[in-house]
């Protein structure tokens, strides 16, 4: 509840929605006969539609990236720190588009939507969506908004994978591509974490093979565990130590199995909160999209060859304490890009926050994004 909306906020924002009647063929072989995308926009599209920036969200993100949907909102959008007038992604200069991806649970067509064929919610029957499917649906949204070519497509984590996919599948439709705290594919360790999260959900007795709504219930405990696990991987060891240390909730050990330490109650709170707001089937889908992402797979594992299709300029950024997608993973991507002689800049930002750092307005990071976007506007290409 911001009594006053801050001056550097995009202010009160109404989500919009676009309905698409043309079927969307998907990587899994199935297709969506029609679908809705919910999105928000910030700033103003210029006359030649050359100042549009697409924001791609990560695992648990959605369209509400900046500003407030209501004066009652306790918190602004998930990337408000970096989107707004005078911020890294300056809405005085750029027209910013942020959508909820297909398969999501914040308004775009997903497992909670009605399957036109059965008249029931899709639930577990919602097709498995791949990153390239998202990008295809985003391209259709761009058509709808009259945007031929994005000034830049930007994303962190799973969002970075979408940005990368844009550069490969629609090379002429973006000038810049910012891949932040991301990776060209998941490692076995990354997949392992996702699998534990999925098992936590599907083994919840309230999961009912994904048909939990038919039973008037939700696999809250499973989703909570999945989120608690995920949350640990988003933070660094040092940031957890800094935030919680071994602080005790009641000042003493209680010799029982309740939460003794602050970190335990924090994780429980985060998990609990998340499980109230997020759909379990969406969580399963999103983790699969992550696991399957491997653009080099279509090119005998040769990422450089795959990326030689791209024409845009790339910005790759990583964070020193991110172990979910460590700097080495970004460097893999940079190596492939330089091998393919693509235009790329790379910075590893010194930051204590772990993977979550990509959400923070760290000065060097803000300057990096701002500088990159500005250089695209100046036509700073070789």
């Amino acid at each position, binding site marked *: 509840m911001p009594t006053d909306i801050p001056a550097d906020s995009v202010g009160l924002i109404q989500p919009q929605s676009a309905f698409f009647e043309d079927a969307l063929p998907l990587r899994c072989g199935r297709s969506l006969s029609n679908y809705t995308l919910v999105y928000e926009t910030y700033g103003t599209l210029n006359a030649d539609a050359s100042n549009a920036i697409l924001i791609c969200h990560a695992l648990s993100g959605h369209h509400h990236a900046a500003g407030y949907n209501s004066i009652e909102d306790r918190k602004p959008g998930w990337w408000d720190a970096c989107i707004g007038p005078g911020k890294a992604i300056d809405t005085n200069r750029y027209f910013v588009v942020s959508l909820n991806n297909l398969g999501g649970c914040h308004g775009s067509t997903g497992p909670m939507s009605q399957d036109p064929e059965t008249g029931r919610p899709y639930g577990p029957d919602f097709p498995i969506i791949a990153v390239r499917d998202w990008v295809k649906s985003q391209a259709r949204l761009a058509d709808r908004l009259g945007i031929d070519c994005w000034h830049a497509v930007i994303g962190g984590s799973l969002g970075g994978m979408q940005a990368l996919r844009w550069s490969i599948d629609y090379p002429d439709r973006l000038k810049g591509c910012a891949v932040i705290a991301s990776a060209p594919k998941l490692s076995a360790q990354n997949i392992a974490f996702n699998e534990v999260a999925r098992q936590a959900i599907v083994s919840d007795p309230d999961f009912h093979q994904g048909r939990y709504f038919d039973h008037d219930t939700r696999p809250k405990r499973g989703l909570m565990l999945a989120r608690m696990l995920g949350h640990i991987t988003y933070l660094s060891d040092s940031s957890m130590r800094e935030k919680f240390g071994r602080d005790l909730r009641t000042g003493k050990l209680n010799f029982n199995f309740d939460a003794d330490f602050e970190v335990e109650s924090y994780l429980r709170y985060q998990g609990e909160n998340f499980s109230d707001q997020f759909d379990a089937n969406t969580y399963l889908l999103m983790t699969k999209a992550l696991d399957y992402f491997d653009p080099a797979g279509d090119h005998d594992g040769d990422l450089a060859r795959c990326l030689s299709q791209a024409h845009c*300029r790339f*910005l790759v950024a990583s964070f020193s304490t991110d172990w979910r997608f460590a700097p080495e993973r970004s*460097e893999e991507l*940079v*190596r492939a890009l*330089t*091998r393919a*002689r693509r*235009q*790329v*800049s*790379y*910075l*590893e*930002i*010194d930051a204590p926050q772990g993977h979550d750092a990509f959400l923070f307005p760290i000065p*060097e990071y803000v*300057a*990096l994004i701002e*500088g*990159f976007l*500005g*250089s*695209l506007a*100046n036509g*700073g*290409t*070789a």
Partner: protein
Amino acid sequence: MRPDLDYIERWISNGSHVLDLGCGDGSLLALLRQRKQVTGYGMEIDTQNILSCVRQGVDVIHQDLNEGLDDIDDQSFDTVIMTQSLQQTHKPDRIVEDMLRIGKQAIVTFPNFGHWTVRSYLALHGRMPVSENLPYTWYDTPNIHFFTFRDFEVLCRERNIKILERTVVDRNHQANWKISLMPNLMGEIALYHITR
């Protein structure tokens, strides 16, 4: 503009693919891009320098050169450049070898520790030279491997590196007759254009 960049520009052919190791704020690459239509990258360790490259649209990769250039393919650049940084690396000989592995040619510039002011400072004071050109004390200097032009040329000979061209200048990047007569004594900065 730094005058040494002018010299370097002459040694770069149009449209070549270059790598600038320790590229600083990107001025050399920006110049080469504008005048010689080069492609390629800078490598730099300092965040502020990286940011100024990015602002100019100069492609730059964050990299500690001491961690090696192993990841770069053989002969993947036309020219690899290193200006005024070789004396700051842990293994200068390995860097030079690597430059000629990944590049067809290399350009190296470095300060001459054989310059007469340096020699006489050490001889007279018995202390490590501190001057306008070498402003650091021995314990906080980034320059950890001092060498002279002659030292560098011995290294080239030992490693079968061919010196295509050499320019020796003073700190203002001017050449003069004293320098051409006694480069190792009178020259302050050398620019070498080398290949295998």
